């Protein structure tokens, strides 16, 4: 595009992006940050927010990783924190007024900063201590000191996109996506989504079935997936599946249920709903030992996993994929070796229970390099050094001697950069720019990712990446994202951290409320009703 001077254009209308009043990015993954800068550049829009003077080309962003927006603050005018359904409408209305009234950009942004859930970095001044940590976050011009995320209060009656743009080419998520509920009752301590999407709000099966059928009719899709953080936790799952299958089955529309837990009930449901080949089952125990699973509050019990595997093998399945993370807080070598034990036991269960052994069994173990995320109980933690991760990979590979088990590990480089960006501050912005300037903006794509490019860029900007990835923060350190709240209190997260170190579990929200604070932003409702 650069070579022939073609500016970035909108996919449907083919209008140049530069002609748009507002350019919005949805960001689910830190490695996409460089794409934002690259796209602005391709569009011919000035990269830095202070270089865009009028209201034209307002650049905004939202999505899970923008709960810490700091690395993008040089480039983005404002962030929508939390669920955008309501905030974006209010923002668009204000923008209309500003345009009609000829407001300056600063006037508009100041008013936008008063909309619930809108964070305007321009009005937050950051000062630093000598050791490089944040000294203070100072709100200016009278803006509120903490921006609390916005949520949809009445999820049951909230907007569901029944009429969508139907692509003429294959896209990712090329199907109807039916969102069952938001939030998660579980509270796995490493999981950012589990904390930032609280509290749990759901739609009833009647409303969901109606949305589903209308969306299928309007789109002509022959596939639908149920979406949520943990499908098994949807209270009316069985009823809903009956309703959906009544419509889908005669029409040959396939239904998929991701994010099921490893228990018998889920397995039966999956067999009933998915007419897939009996090949692969996927589980994510995340840690090898029960001790470590307790520490991270991942409530998968070995018995459940083994039971489900037994039923699966008896039913003719012959492949299981197991996902783990290495580098979790409190992890010891014993925990690492326990992964191999777990895999061996699954093989043993297959030997004992498989009906037909002639096809053999394939157990795949995958490990990824754990990235501590902000707004979780792990946000103060140092990430393992890459060399430590590699040592653990080697240890596990040496322990895993079973020929039926294949071991895959992810390279740690991307996860290291991700760890820097996730807990980065405003000083990271120039690094992002440097990466785009000297290489490719497509750092989220493994074929374009370049670790050396990142390391050179850190160096050129005088930034030590270990300061962000591999440093343990103290309890009273001002964190760069302290002006943002996802509803869950910081002291609750700290308490959870201490509970983790004691190896104790925290009950899920359905069993017992442990007072995280998210209920306070849910005005009219109660969590998980």
């Amino acid at each position, binding site marked *: 595009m650069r070579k022939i001077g073609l500016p970035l254009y909108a996919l449907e209308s083919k209008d140049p992006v530069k002609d748009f009043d507002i350019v919005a990015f949805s960001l689910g993954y830190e490695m996409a940050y460089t794409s934002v800068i690259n796209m602005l550049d391709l569009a011919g829009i000035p990269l830095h927010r202070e270089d865009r003077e009028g209201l034209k080309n307002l650049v905004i962003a939202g999505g899970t990783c923008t709960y810490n927006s700091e690395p993008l603050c040089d480039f983005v005018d404002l962030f929508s924190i939390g669920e955008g359904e309501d905030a974006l409408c209010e923002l668009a209305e204000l923008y209309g007024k500003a345009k009609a009234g000829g407001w300056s950009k600063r006037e508009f942004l100041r008013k936008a900063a008063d909309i619930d859930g809108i964070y305007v970095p321009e009005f937050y001044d950051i000062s630093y201590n000598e050791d490089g940590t944040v000294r203070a976050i100072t709100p200016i011009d009278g803006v509120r000191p903490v921006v609390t995320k916005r949520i949809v209060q009445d999820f049951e009656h909230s907007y569901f996109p029944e009429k969508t743009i*139907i692509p*003429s*080419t*294959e896209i990712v998520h*090329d199907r109807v996506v039916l969102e069952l509920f938001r939030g998660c009752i579980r509270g796995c301590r490493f999981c950012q989504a589990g904390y930032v999407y609280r509290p749990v709000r759901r739609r009833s099966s009647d409303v969901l079935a109606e949305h589903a059928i209308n969306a299928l*009719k*309007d*789109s*002509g*899709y*022959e596939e639908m997936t149920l979406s949520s953080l943990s499908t098994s936790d949807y209270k009316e799952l069985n009823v809903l599946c009956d309703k959906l299958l009544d419509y889908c089955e005669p*029409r*040959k529309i396939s239904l998929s249920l991701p994010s099921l837990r490893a228990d018998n009930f889920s397995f039966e449901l999956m067999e009933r709903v998915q007419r897939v080949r009996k090949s692969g089952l996927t589980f994510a125990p995340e840690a090898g030992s029960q001790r470590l699973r307790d520490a991270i509050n991942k409530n998968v019990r070995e018995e459940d996993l083994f039971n489900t595997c037994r039923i699966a093998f008896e039913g003719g399945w012959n492949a299981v994929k197991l996902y783990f993370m290495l580098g979790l807080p409190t992890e010891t070598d014993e925990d690492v070796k326990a992964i191999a034990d777990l895999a061996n036991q699954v093989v043993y269960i297959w030997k004992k229970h498989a009906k037909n052994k002639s096809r053999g069994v394939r157990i795949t173990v995958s490990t990824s390099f754990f990235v501590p995320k902000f707004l979780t109980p792990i946000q103060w933690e140092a990430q393992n050094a890459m060399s430590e991760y590699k040592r653990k990979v080697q240890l596990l590979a040496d322990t895993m001697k079973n020929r039926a088990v294949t071991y895959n590990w992810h390279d740690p480089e991307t996860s290291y950069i991700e760890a820097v960006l996730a807990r980065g501050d405003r000083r990271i912005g120039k690094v992002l720019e440097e990466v785009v300037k000297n290489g490719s903006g497509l750092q989220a794509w493994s074929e374009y990712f370049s670790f050396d490019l990142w390391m050179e860029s850190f160096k050129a900007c005088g930034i030590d990446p270990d300061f962000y990835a591999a440093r343990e923060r103290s309890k009273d350190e001002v964190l760069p994202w302290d002006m943002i709240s996802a509803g869950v209190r910081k002291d609750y997260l700290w308490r959870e951290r201490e509970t983790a170190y004691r190896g104790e579990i925290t009950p899920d929200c359905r069993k017992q409320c442990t007072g995280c604070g998210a209920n306070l932003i849910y005005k009219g409702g109660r969590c998980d009703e």
Partner: protein
Amino acid sequence: MNRILFSKTGMAKYISHLDLMRTMQRALLRAGLEIKHTQGFNPHPHMVFALPLPVGCESCCELMDFELVKDAGEEEIVSGMNRTLPEGIEVISAYVPERKLKEIAKLEMEIIFTFDSGATEEKADRLRELFERNEIVVNKKTKKGFSDINIRELMDKVEISIYNSSKIRLSAVIAAQNPSLNPLLITTAIGNYEPELAPDQVSYNRKEIYDNEMNIFR
């Protein structure tokens, strides 16, 4: 059994064959027309395209056969699909087919070459000379690797004329199936035999389909 005649022009020429199948399937469903599925372990919608159109080619004579769960009238199919199809794909007519798709033998193609340096009579003459040969061999990628084919014996009624100041038009009747000729190879041949005449841009357009006796096929 139903057959539709449709065109695929403009930006829609970039929709690949696989995506076209999806698009058609969705268009039918969105129009409330349920398509019959194949029997068997992994049922899929039963649709047959006469001749897959290469990406980048436009056409005003594409045919697709399918079966509906419930019968629908011609008008219902045409207007229903046109309401839901993307810009550039238009159903011209729908009917119950009388002939089998395998009777299709020939295609009329129009190829427009654009020359940034201008379209001259001299260039047109040199192209005419090229296509007067009995043998024009192009190396073609096949399932088993590469093989040389003589594209000239798959072409008939080649006509070359100046289209406007920068474009030259080639029209020809080419073999449609068993074997077929991918029209992109015609451009490849020009580049190989007359490198100076390699066009800067090419557009391809399927104009008509015929049976072996050169009767229009529907």
